[in-house]
């Protein structure tokens, strides 16, 4: 089959073959031809040629998306003026949050700035989905690299439909709901559907509302502390800072527990006493100096100066990497209960 479509592929440092977490801060660069999963993509879809692959460190983009996107657009713009590609494909990012953010931000930017169709692929629970689904098409993927072939098989046909400006639907074309409302003619009138829905409700049968009420899952802001100099403060982190050796064996991803650890007598954390259990970022800096994630040294200083009434004796830690919303909620509720019982009045929660 002859080449019909030329695409640009975007990959993070890992899939782009540059390196692991230690390369997560690598600035973007453009390589010609396919790399990593791009090889599989070209093999599965012989009508496609990957003209170039953009590789970026995912922290580099996720930490400062605006500047990184400017940089990426700068790399892609000359490329898109001559011999313009048909489509940009980013990822798939599976359940990787920072990679997902980078893919979403790139897709949104090339659509809006370069008028280039774009598609990415993610696991539905990837936090980037909520941020970017409205702005780009996100094909449904599994949560890890084992699902690469299926992910590509979802992303590419969807992307090509976008190139050809064909109508797409989430179920048929395997993409995640964007949260947009769209009209469609159906077989039955609204009145008939309403009676059918009511009868289902009355008979205890399942029914699906056609307009789910918008959910604002927001907590009412708690009143401020009048004087921190009189208040009891606790530290909580999702950055995975645990005593050296990770005594509770908190998982590096999708944590199944949180830990409660004493700060009694500690003036600061150190590489000798603490480490990170988090598997989602390069642990070098946190392991060198865990205060970089849980700033105990600065808190103790401010406590000694009277800016903080007192620091609660324990801190609470889990790993926020790919942790389900349900688990996070559960840990939050359990920690809150303890904090209330212990008379804690304010919390600093740190996340990576």
């Amino acid at each position, binding site marked *: 089959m002859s080449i019909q479509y030329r695409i640009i592929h975007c990959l993070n440092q890992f899939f782009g073959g540059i390196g692991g977490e230690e390369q997560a801060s690598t600035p973007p660069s453009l390589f010609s031809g396919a790399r990593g999963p791009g090889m599989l993509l070209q093999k599965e879809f012989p009508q496609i040629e990957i003209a170039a692959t953009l590789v970026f460190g995912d922290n580099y983009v996720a930490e400062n998306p605006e500047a990184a996107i400017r940089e990426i657009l700068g790399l892609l713009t000359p490329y898109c003026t001559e011999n313009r590609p048909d489509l940009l494909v980013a990822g798939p990012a599976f359940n990787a949050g920072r990679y997902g953010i980078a893919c979403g931000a790139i897709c949104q930017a090339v659509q809006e700035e370069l008028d280039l169709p774009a598609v990415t692929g993610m696991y539905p629970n990837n936090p980037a989905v909520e941020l970017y689904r409205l702005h780009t098409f996100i094909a449904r993927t599994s949560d890890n690299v084992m699902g690469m072939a299926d992910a590509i098989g979802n992303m590419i046909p969807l992307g090509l439909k976008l190139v050809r400006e064909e109508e797409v639907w989430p179920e048929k074309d395997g993409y995640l*709901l964007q949260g947009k409302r769209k009209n469609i003619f159906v077989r039955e009138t609204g009145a008939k559907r309403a009676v059918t829905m009511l009868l289902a409700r009355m008979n205890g049968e399942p029914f699906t*509302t056609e307009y789910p009420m918008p959910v604002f899952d927001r907590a009412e802001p708690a009143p401020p502390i009048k004087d921190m100099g009189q208040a009891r403060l606790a530290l909580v982190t999702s950055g995975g800072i645990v005593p050296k050796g990770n005594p509770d064996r908190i998982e590096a991803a999708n944590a199944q527990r949180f830990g409660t650890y004493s700060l009694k007598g500690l003036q600061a954390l150190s590489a000798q006493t603490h480490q990170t259990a988090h598997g989602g970022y390069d642990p070098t800096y946190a392991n060198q100096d865990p205060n970089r994630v849980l700033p105990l040294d600065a808190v103790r200083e401010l406590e000694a100066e009277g800016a903080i009434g007192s620091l609660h004796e324990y801190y609470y830690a889990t790993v926020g990497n790919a942790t389900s919303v349900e688990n996070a909620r559960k840990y939050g509720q359990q920690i809150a209960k303890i904090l209330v019982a212990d008379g804690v009045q304010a919390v600093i929660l740190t996340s990576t």
Partner: protein
Amino acid sequence: MTLKLAYFEINDIVFGQETIIDGSTLVINRESLENTLKTSDKRISAIGLHTAMPGDSTRILCVKDVIEPRCKIKGTELGVGNTHILKNVAVVTCGKIVGFQEGIIDMSGPGAAHTPFSATLNVVLDIQVVPGLSPHEHEEVVRLTGLTAATLLAQTSTNKNPTRVETYPPIDPAAVPSSLPRIAYVYMLLSQGLLHDTYVLEENAKQGLPRILEHTLLLDGAIISGNCVSACDKNTTYHHQNNPVLRELLREHHKRLSLVGVVLTNEPISLDAKKKSAQQSVELVQTLKADGAIMSKEGFGNPDTDQMLLIRGLEEAGIPTVALTDEFAGANGCSQSLADSTPQAIAMVSVGNANERILLSPLEQLLGPISDLTKLAGAYPHSLHDDGSMEVELQAIIGATNELGWQTLRCREV
């Protein structure tokens, strides 16, 4: 106390020497009917009568109301006795009243699918009024002239045999089978004065609601639209005469449910009044001993609050409710659809996003006052293209997102 609706199927309208039914053709003496209507109200300065048939390359503009031709036979009391109906015929009144919220009916092209009145044989009345009339009087002239025309046309059937007859006995809520769910219909009417009016039994619905009204009165045309609001979700008189929710409930009556009554409620202008109305409506539904409720709506914006108050009230009273609404989610479908919400509204039927745009193809004939084309709600200054095509929001089309659930359009998440 039974109502009989006698239908006379009409397949064509032609102009001729006298106004009669000839077989299944409605013949209209155009000049005579125009004159009769013009002399019926001295506030009319000119009247133009046209026809618009399904498939015609015709666009009707500034549509104010649509009315099904009906007349009472043998006895004048509404809700009982015989009513003659010219099936498939609609009187379409046009008038530039408020200048921006009258609607469009396209008889062919992409717009036709979005209005029920592309499928009816339309008698279009372009009504001009004498200078100096207030908008309120102007609205009244157009409304009454349309009703007069509808009655005169229906009276051609007086000595004819109907194609079919539907019989509607009264419903005794106490005598319904105990095994079926008892369902009440909560029927919201826009009733805010200032050209946002609905008439129930010839009274302005600003007063006297909420109340329970017999279904036979509703089927017999107890509700007349006097609304000058957005075309897509104002319930025209034709919609009220043929209320699809009521029809569906009656179709299932004594089969899968029992209709125990209809509660008419209003959409008043202050929050206090809205709360009071909602509470009274819930109490009325409770007096009917309803197990469940179905709710239709008119308009958007502040009526969203009425609807949410009603849903919350009913659900909290233990009455599961299904409610119809349209959406205003922006042209791209990304905005919040409704102005209000409540977690209890778990069973909504969405009849479409009225902000979605549609490109109406150029049509040969334009009926109605056309000078203010670009000022219709849902149109834009650049709506009208050089080739005669028009890009508008569905909002501009009569009945496009009818909240009685007439259309088969729905809105979904993508």
